[in-house]
């Protein structure tokens, strides 16, 4: 008996599909925000080290395990991990590789619809904001952040119609299959989004200092804010309740003009303090009411000693490369036995890094800095704030902003579609493999499940609590777990020697030998350390961290009872996990070391 199996049409096809999966909002919004928040150039050192020690090894491991699983007839993560591990635990842990992409899709498609909505509204000239307050008001109205159910609506300035279009587009492409749907779309979308991105970068780099009244607000200083490895702050010394002097940062500054202003503020404060001392006021009163101002220089080494910077850099590598998502392992399962995985994995990764560092790193923050200045950017470095509050405001006042705003959000939309497609395919593969559904049936069932989750996130839109809860528990916690499990599985259960041999089967290039050692020892240990520190900080508030507000939403605080919307979002995650668990338990195909030959189960 022969069995019809899906596969990629070409090497460039799967490279663009995996790159499209990895290139998303994180490259153009999350990455620059993280760099700006965590030390600029110092962050990049931790970022590249994390890339080599964590990102690239897991990426190669996923590609290799996926292709190996595919040769045994498996395309779903539970099937592949069960096959690789040769232990029942493998298939159960593999369920995470279905839960992660499907749950993330539920809210990611909503953000995708926001991008499309902004692109359409910019192109129609509907978005003309004069202040960030205006753009915030539009965002709240468009997404329903002000109240539950407010985002439901089908006007051009509500998200409904764009969400419907995004869902239909995703499922249409998924229905067409790996080659005719995903590969076809990514072959056009990824090069197109790169061209658009380069055009926007050129526009941004030629902006100079757009406001003559504030020459310090320039692209050059914006780049400095992003990339300077050392930081300079205007600070004040204030005594705490025990009388000990604490340093409180007032603002960061970049460039000679801002430095002159800061030095003038310091000198003025000294004059003021001297005058107060001469007027008979006690020094204690002066310290309390008019503390001295100082200029603080934070060195590169001082910044690199900050554990949060390393956690942020490692986290960004995870999100950026789509490792631990269950996507790469699924995509590579459609490769053939002698198809290269080493060069393809590196090429897809390098495409993502190009989009992130070379484009995302010099586009979003410098543009926002040039128009809004340091003060305007304060508190605007999160993904949503930068993308949907600061940048719409920038495009509103930028010459040619209507066109570039539309292009920018269309770029984000394309990037989001190529990513959301990759989140659906693992679910489709799982349903077809676990309970032998046809393509129509699997698309219908997954469509129903994800539409329910998306409807929940869209309706309970106030303060994006439902979205943030899913993102934290699945988009952060479970990704760490899956990535850690995968690299341990590859290096220790499959065996590094087997894995190395398998990776080089048909390889176009060789992996440097040092990576054998990195994959076996460094990556698993680093991931375990990072995950432990993350848990201690976010769940217990230890090691200088604070208990995450996503955890507090569930357990409640002295001032607030547990949040029902957050619990509802968690219930969706748990229900879908149970659903997958039942299917794996019922499945005759997904087993520990089951091999499929000629469509028959052999063992």
């Amino acid at each position, binding site marked *: 008996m*022969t*069995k*019809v*199996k*899906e*596969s*990629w*049409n*070409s*090497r*460039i*096809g799967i*490279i663009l599909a995996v790159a499209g999966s990895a290139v998303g909002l994180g490259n153009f919004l999350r990455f620059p925000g993280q760099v700006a928040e965590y030390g*600029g*150039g110092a962050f*990049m050192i931790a970022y*590249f080290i994390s890339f080599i020690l964590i990102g690239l090894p897991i990426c190669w491991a996923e590609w290799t395990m996926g292709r190996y699983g595919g*040769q*045994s*007839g498996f395309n779903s993560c539970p099937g592949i991990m069960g096959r690789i591990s040769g232990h029942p635990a493998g298939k159960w842990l593999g369920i995470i590789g279905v839960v992660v992409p499907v749950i993330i899709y539920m809210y990611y498609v909503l953000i995708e619809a926001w991008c499309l909505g902004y692109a359409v509204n910019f192109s129609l000239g509907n978005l003309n904001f004069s202040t960030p307050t205006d753009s915030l008001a539009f965002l709240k109205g468009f997404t329903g952040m002000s109240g539950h159910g407010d985002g439901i609506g089908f006007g051009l300035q509500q998200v409904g119609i764009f969400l419907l279009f995004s869902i239909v587009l995703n499922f249409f492409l998924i229905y067409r*299959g790996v*080659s*005719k749907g995903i*590969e076809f779309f990514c072959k056009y979308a990824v090069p197109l989004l790169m061209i658009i991105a380069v055009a926007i970068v050129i526009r941004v780099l030629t902006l100079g200092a757009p406001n003559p009244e504030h020459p310090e607000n320039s692209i*050059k*200083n914006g*780049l*400095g804010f*992003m*990339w*300077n*490895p*050392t930081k300079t702050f205007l600070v004040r010394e204030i005594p705490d309740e025990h009388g000990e002097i604490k340093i409180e940062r007032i603002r960061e500054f*970049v*460039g000679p003009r801002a430095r002159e202003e800061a030095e003038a503020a310091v000198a003025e404060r000294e004059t003021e303090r001297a005058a107060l001392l001469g007027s008979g006021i006690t020094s204690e009163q002066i310290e309390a009411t008019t503390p001295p101002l100082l200029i603080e220089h934070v060195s*590169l080494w001082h910044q690199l000693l900050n554990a949060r910077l390393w956690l942020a850099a490692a986290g960004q590598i995870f999100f950026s490369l789509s490792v631990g998502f269950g996507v790469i392992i699924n995509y590579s399962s459609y490769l*053939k*036995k*002698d*198809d*290269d995985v080493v*060069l*393809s994995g*590196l*090429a897809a990764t*390098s*495409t993502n*890094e*190009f989009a*992130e*560092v*070379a484009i995302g*790193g*010099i586009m979003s923050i410098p543009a926002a800095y040039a128009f809004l200045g340091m003060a305007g950017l304060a508190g605007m470095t999160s993904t949503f704030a930068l993308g949907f509050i600061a940048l719409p405001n920038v495009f509103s006042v930028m010459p040619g902003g209507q066109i570039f705003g539309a292009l920018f959000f269309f770029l984000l939309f394309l990037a989001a579609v190529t990513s959301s497609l990759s989140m659906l395919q693992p679910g489709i593969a799982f349903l077809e493999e676990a309970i032998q559904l046809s393509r129509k049936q699997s698309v219908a069932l997954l469509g129903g499940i994800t539409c329910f989750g998306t409807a929940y996130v869209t309706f309970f839109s106030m303060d994006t609590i439902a979205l943030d809860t899913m993102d934290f528990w699945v988009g952060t916690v479970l990704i760490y777990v899956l990535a850690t499990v995968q690299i341990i599985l590859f290096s220790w259960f499959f065996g590094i020697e087997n894995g190395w041999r398998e990776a080089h089967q*048909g390889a*176009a*290039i060789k992996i440097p030998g040092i990576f054998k050692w990195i994959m076996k020892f460094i990556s698993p240990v680093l991931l375990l350390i990072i995950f432990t520190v993350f848990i201690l900080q976010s769940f217990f508030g230890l090691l200088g961290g604070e208990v995450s507000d996503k955890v507090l939403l569930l357990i409640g605080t002295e001032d607030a009872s547990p949040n029902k919307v957050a619990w509802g979002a968690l219930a969706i995650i748990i229900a879908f996990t149970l659903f997958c668990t039942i299917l794996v338990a019922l499945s005759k195909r997904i087993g520990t070391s089951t091999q*499929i*030959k*000629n469509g028959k189960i052999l063992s």
Partner: protein
Amino acid sequence: MTFGGWFMLITSVGSVVTLFVWCLYKVITIPEETDHIHGFNETRPDAED
């Protein structure tokens, strides 16, 4: 923008652009191991083994 900032920017962007271009060159110049003519292939896993 300090000297350190320019150094970080040029080094980081230069590294990823070099890697990207090198990968692109390799992908284009190294012939594929498997002929892929159709998206949907009729496969016989026993024959592949």
